[in-house]
């Protein structure tokens, strides 16, 4: 795809159920492939989007299947943007500590791994609150 042509934009709306994660991953994969990312980078983007949507299903909608998850993918000037919006419970990403594997091991639990992965896998991660009590996270990957 030539970035000087029309702006690439795709949208997907799904309900907040974990069985939609496969669909979300496929949507992300095909878009990233169209924009020219390598298989390795596509894998990273897919995982980051999966983790973000899993967090929404788990924390924002607390596994209620009736919530909406809106995904918009844009590609502009070599940057791949995935905006993920929900209408669930707001959570403050800064309140989630960096995961400590040794501590988790003792506590037999694992929390915050997803958010940590998202940060590691993407070039930019921006959380915001939109009008109408919507939460949005925008994940950005540079095509380099």
């Amino acid at each position, binding site marked *: 795809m030539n970035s000087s042509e029309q702006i690439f934009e795709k949208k997907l709306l799904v309900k907040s159920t*974990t*069985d*939609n*994660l*496969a*669909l979300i*991953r496929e949507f992300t994969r095909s878009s990233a492939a169209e924009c020219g990312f390598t298989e*390795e980078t596509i*894998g990273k983007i*897919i*995982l980051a989007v*999966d*983790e973000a949507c*899993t967090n929404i*299903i*788990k924390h924002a909608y607390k596994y209620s299947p009736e919530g909406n998850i809106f995904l918009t993918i844009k590609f502009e000037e070599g940057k791949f943007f995935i905006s993920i919006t929900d209408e669930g419970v707001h959570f403050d990403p800064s309140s989630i500590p960096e*995961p400590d*594997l*040794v501590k*988790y*091991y*003792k506590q*037999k*639990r*694992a929390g915050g*791994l*997803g958010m*940590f*992965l998202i940060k*590691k*896998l993407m070039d930019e991660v921006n959380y915001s609150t939109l009008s109408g009590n919507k939460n949005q996270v925008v994940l950005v990957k540079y095509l380099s």
Partner: protein
Amino acid sequence: MADFNVNLRGVGSVSVIDVKGYLDAHTAPELENVFNKLLDNRQFKVIVNFDELKYISSAGLGVFMAYVETMRENKGDIKFSNMKDNVYNIFDLLGFPILYEFFKEEKEALQKFDSLG
């Protein structure tokens, strides 16, 4: 939707779990069921063979974190084998190699259990 299969087999005193396909928040409960079955049967020596696993998210990694301490408290362990690079890289990003043993081949993991008795 997500294509995931889990199979359990016994090799001597060791339980081998073969995972196949996509391990995410939707399919992780299937893997948890297998671990619960192992605990019910007091089987604490476990190898997870990743040969046919294509994808893992933190929900899958969380399953191993939830059970490994119990296995070790009972003189067992969870060891990993046959992992593809793309899957290993996720474990590595999260620091798993500090706490878990990874083997190229299942038989090497079996030998490690055998050597410990």
